[in-house]
């Protein structure tokens, strides 16, 4: 016998209605500005090699700290490297770092959240205990402690920033799981003999998809900001790598003689964080009409 679930019971709340959501998103001018910034950032990150006007690592001491010119549109850094090319390569680093760290947080957080919400009891108590302790710390402080112990490197910065975002996902997924698992369609699936894994994969996860997308967009902003902060403190990429926080750290000594060395990477960080935040807000309004005001 093939088990078919009555349609009324089987259809989970389909909060993720693509066409309507997209239309709502397009009508939101701030979200469109955000989307434009994010797409530009992704494009620059992907094609940094091709669009960079100069070799990002080639120093020319005679050009050190020179301001913008026709050949070097954004000027040169403290040892004469082309700022624009370094910013482009910095975008690539920020993009990679934020995607990987958000990925770490997302996968771990979703697993923990589903486990806590679905199984409840002791599992829930232990997981949420860990999460509450993690939330007691300001995230940047926790990242610093992690990186200080793991050793400064780009890879460890990604891990630290990823770990920071675990609590957000865990709480989000746990609360959604708690409400969804009580729904009739989950009960029906269980009655029909569906395994825990099937219920989680087929019924619970699709329903937390929308809030996860929103959260991930906002989390990208957090990751980029945290990476720049770690870089600025000298706890991220090695000194030569054109990571934006690193560039800011190197340029801070020349803030008067050559302010562009500090300003451009700072503005780039701000712009990208701003873009992801605008897009995240827009997505939330578009995907969750209850919050749409």
């Amino acid at each position, binding site marked *: 016998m093939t088990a078919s679930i009555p349609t009324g019971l089987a259809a989970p709340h389909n909060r993720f209605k693509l066409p309507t959501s997209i239309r709502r998103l397009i009508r939101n001018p701030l979200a469109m500005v955000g989307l434009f910034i994010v797409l530009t950032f992704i494009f620059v990150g992907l094609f940094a090699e091709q669009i960079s006007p100069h070799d990002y690592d080639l120093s020319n001491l005679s050009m050190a700290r020179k301001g913008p010119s026709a050949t070097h549109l954004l000027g040169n850094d403290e040892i004469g490297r082309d700022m624009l090319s370094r910013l482009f390569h910095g975008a690539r680093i920020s993009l990679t770092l934020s995607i990987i760290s958000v990925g770490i947080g997302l996968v771990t957080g979703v697993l923990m959240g589903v486990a806590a919400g679905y199984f409840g009891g002791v599992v829930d108590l232990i997981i949420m205990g860990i999460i509450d302790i993690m939330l007691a710390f*300001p995230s940047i402080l926790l990242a610093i402690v992690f990186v200080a112990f793991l050793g400064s490197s780009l890879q460890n910065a990604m891990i630290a920033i990823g770990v920071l975002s675990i609590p957000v996902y865990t709480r989000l997924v746990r609360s959604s799981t708690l409400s969804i698992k009580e729904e009739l369609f989950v009960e029906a699936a269980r009655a029909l003999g569906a395994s825990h894994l099937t219920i989680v994969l087929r019924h619970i996860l699709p329903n937390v998809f929308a809030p996860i997308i929103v959260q991930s967009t906002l989390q990208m902003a957090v990751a980029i900001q945290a990476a720049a902060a770690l870089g600025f403190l000298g706890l991220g990429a090695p000194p030569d790598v054109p990571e934006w926080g690193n560039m800011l750290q190197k340029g801070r000594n020349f803030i008067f003689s050559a302010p562009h060395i500090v300003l451009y990477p700072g503005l780039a960080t701000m712009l990208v*964080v701003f873009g992801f935040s605008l897009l995240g807000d827009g997505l939330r309004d578009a995907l969750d009409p209850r*919050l749409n*005001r």
Partner: protein
Amino acid sequence: MSFQRYILRRILFVIPVVFGITFFAFFIANAVPADPVTANLPQSALNNPEIVETFRRRWGLDRPPVERYLTYVSNLVQGDLGTSIKTRRPVIDDIRRFLPATMELATFSIVVGISLGVGLGVVSALYRNTVVDYAARVFSLVGVSFPVFLLALIALSIFYVQLGWTSGLGRLDIVLQTRQPPAVTGWYTIDSLLRGDLRTFQSAVSHLILPSLVLGSYVSGIIARITRSSLLEVLGQDYIRTARSKGLRERFVIRRHAMRNAMIPIVTVIGLSYGSLLSGAVLTESIFAWPGIGRYMYQASTSQDFPAIMGVSILIALIFVGVNFVVDILYYFLDPRIRLT
């Protein structure tokens, strides 16, 4: 539940949190390859096995982790947080020395944050979807997106170096360092006033302006966003329409009917922001050479100063629990229907 029982429950809640934190910190420290010996001894000393051995014995690093953890916990129960490897002072003394500086800065910053944030949020909600709203929202989002260290550097170079309007690094002018007010509260502003020393007071306030503006503008972005959405939700309620249809003045409706009901999420965010400011704003404190908890924690982390990291972690947990407690009490006063559980 009676108020006393509520407080007792809150206090009891602190115990597992503190032990959880010490356990985690210990676990992390022992799970990673970092070695406090290499972080704290110079290369010349590292070549001398005798010095290394003495160092390990002095800080208990030669004993197994379980034994060290148990020793730490039994000392902790007696109120002993151990001695910092870096500063060689008892951690509790270091905290006593650095916490007031952070508290003073956090309090000035949160005042700036609330004034700016609530103001912007209210204006944004009242002029919803107009140019004013968009401008206020973009402004608050820029405040949140702007890297705080860049804002600090720019503020320092413009207002301190170029214009000379405010003071720069540290908590007091160098010439006044010898006139540090005797520590009563540890807040230079209050202690100097208590002694009637206006010059020190002026210098302390002048040193607070830039860092608290920088931190405050960041926090104001977060507060403005929550104020806007919370107020908008309340403004859509029936009782607001009723109040308006009764002919009440708009100002009165907003202040007495709308804001009061919108306050709960706003207070929550203010509490969380204040808690995180009290835990030390690492970047701002580093840039402004502010001798606070954030800078202490940063230095402790980079030198794997384990007792200091543990001490500050416990402190942060206590701050977090304390702030939540105060927020809960405020809920009760804002909305007497809420029962403390």
